[in-house]
């Protein structure tokens, strides 16, 4: 019954979040009584907030719902008799460390960008690249190990979910690496710091998010 309780809690949190946001936008006011300019109104747009950041948050909400749907499918499928839990290779712990290090170094890059320290930004970005590529390589290696043990994609639903979800997660990271590469190239080409500040910051958000997805996913697989 844990699943149902989690869903109900999730619904309440989502509704609460939406309601708070709408409340702060004053959806209870009567627009027909209100004339003229309203420059101090809370739902006037905050122009210090770059649209790309809003778009990234919305996109992460979409990605989050993709992964949570996979997780709920995982739970539902688990209850059938043919489910044999997968023995996760220990290598995944190493990969986790790699991904954490990637997150740490992108955080360093973002902090450095805030202080306009362009050298540290470059260093942080390169570190992020190395650790993240190491993570992807490690994931592929873990797949190899599983295949060598005879744990194929189709031999059990637990395996199928493992390959599918880790593969999808890796694909998202590869997508992030594309943006990372563009940002790094711009740092390399000597663009001024205010032009790359936002990109580094958005990369940071994305990396932390994918780390969080990975931790939830890995925890889920270890515990089942």
């Amino acid at each position, binding site marked *: 019954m844990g699943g149902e309780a989690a869903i109900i809690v999730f619904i309440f949190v989502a509704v609460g979040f939406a309601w708070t946001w709408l409340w702060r936008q004053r959806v209870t006011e009567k627009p027909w009584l209100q004339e003229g300019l309203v420059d101090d109104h809370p739902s006037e747009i905050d122009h210090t907030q770059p*649209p790309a950041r*809003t778009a990234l948050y919305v996109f992460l909400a979409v990605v989050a719902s*993709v992964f949570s749907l996979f997780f709920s499918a995982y739970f539902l499928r688990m209850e*059938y008799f043919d489910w044999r839990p997968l023995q996760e290779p220990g290598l995944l712990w190493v990969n986790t460390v790699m991904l954490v290090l990637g997150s740490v170094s992108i955080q360093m890059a973002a902090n450095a960008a805030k202080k306009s320290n362009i050298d540290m930004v470059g260093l942080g970005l390169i570190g992020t690249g190395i650790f993240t590529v190491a993570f992807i390589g490690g994931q592929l290696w873990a797949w190899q190990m599983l295949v060598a043990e005879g744990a194929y994609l189709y031999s059990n639903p637990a395996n199928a979910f493992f390959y599918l979800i880790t593969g999808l997660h890796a694909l998202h990271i590869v997508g992030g690496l594309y943006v990372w590469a563009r940002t790094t190239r711009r740092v390399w080409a000597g663009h001024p710091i205010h032009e790359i500040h936002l990109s580094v910051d958005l990369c940071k958000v994305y990396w932390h998010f994918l780390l969080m997805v990975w931790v939830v996913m890995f925890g889920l697989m270890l515990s089942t």
Partner: protein
Amino acid sequence: MAYVALADRGQELAHPHTWIGKYVWCQDHKVIAIQYGGTAILVGVVALVLSALMRLQLGFPDTFSIITPGEYYQAVTMHGMIMVIYLLTALFLGGFGNYLIPLMCGTRDMVFPFMNMLSFWVYLLSVIILMVSFFVPGGPTGAGWTLYPPQAILPGTPGATWGILLMLISLAVFIVAFTMGGLNYITTVLQARCRGMTLMRMPLSVWGIFVATVLGLLAFPALLVSAIMMIFDYLFGTSFFMPAIISLGEQLDYKGGSPVLFQHLFWFFGHPEVYIVALPAFGIVSDVLSVHARKNIFGYRMMVWAIVAIGGLSFIVWAHHMYVSGMNPYFGFFFATTTLIIAVPTAIKVYNWVLTLWQGNIHLRTPMLFAIGFIFTFIHGGLTGLFLGNVVIDLPLSDTYFVIAHFHMVMGVSPILVVFAAIYHWYPKITGRMYNETLGKWHFWMTFFGTYAIYLPMHYIGFLGVPRRYYANGVTDFMPESVQDLNAAITIAALFVAATQIIFFWNMLTSIWNGKKAPHNPWNANSLEWRTEQTPPVHGNWGDELPVVHRWAYDYSVPGRETDFVPQDEPVREGGGEHRT
């Protein structure tokens, strides 16, 4: 802080000078809207022809045996999928969303014009992939638009090889396109409104499109997940959805998968999808009614709250599509309750539309006729929804024509009537020409009565227990012969309505050249899209300055005013003088 609008802060609009740059690889939201809308309508015509083929088979099984049983199922599947996703979703969000959001919010374009353009081209790709499936070996999938496994990918189902694969890939591509568009719609509404345009001053069309986009972004992932997992089951032999099964006398390698799991995922997308189509229609119809009744929309706040509430509730009703699917019957109680609760905000909206008309100065122009027609068909379809939302009534009716009648009234005819209302309403702005009013009225009355002639009788044959999805009914004890007569009549009505649409296309196409030149604001409406300096608006929409909003969009027939409308960007008069209650 001095107000600097987003669109004027160093964001350069690409102004191409070649024909291809202006109309093909174009980043102008208005051109993208027309590309989206045109593609959606074209592919919708394909679905219309498919429905005509099905009706010929059902109405005159002995005279017109044009299609085989397998082709019948392929037509059913493609008709449903095209109409729901590739026509309605794309037209409301990609078409009207693209056209109306920047104009109504007073911005120069979407926030990410390049991604917006990409969204259309990826959508076109998904349509092409879908159309290709008509020409591959085995033809398109015939699994029903819900694509239920196991039969969707088993031999014996039409198109169980290439057809289903192309369908799943096309859906995944469509979702990518929708996500790119959706990020734009949300970010533009949140971040690019002009000065003075608070959320509660936005026209309801924008509210409907906005909330529908949120629903789409959260619901389409469920379809993506189920499509990916089904592709894995089909290509790699996994058993996510596929149970142990004997097919054509042969034990397959699948074991232990859960078809009901697919249904949960599918309907977790599928029910919000109904509201992805309905909410923009609700919003647009509210604006059309208000403008042509020269009255403010009744209960604006309630309308906004109802849109949000319906959007939220739509995520917890999905299993009412599965009462007969072998799901745990006790779940049915929960889902019947939530389903009936959703009737409350929906009824609020219907009452408010009717009360907007009450004592209004009603102008029965073509868009208004379609909007009022929508109220009829929507109440009709909504009421039958109350029947089907209850488990005990749904069980006997679920597999009959009653369901066909219900969902065609509520999410086929009703949104399409709004599409027509919207096209007629904004046609002068989009093309700069007036359409032919007489032809428009003929189009309305023939379509309106025609659709009733199609779907009203289906309720009766549904009560008789005539099963849906059947290629031919044959001879049975419970069906009197008159059922076949009614089926023939329905077919004639369906062909009549299909032919009627020629009037619409003729009117739309010839008016581009022959129509009277449209004034900037032919309906004397308040919202910003009617306040552009050029008609049709140029790339960038506004002149040197963005509009500034001083009021909501519904100041019609304000006492003490010489005109019966006060546009949103008109400043407050010195000394007031208006009576506000």
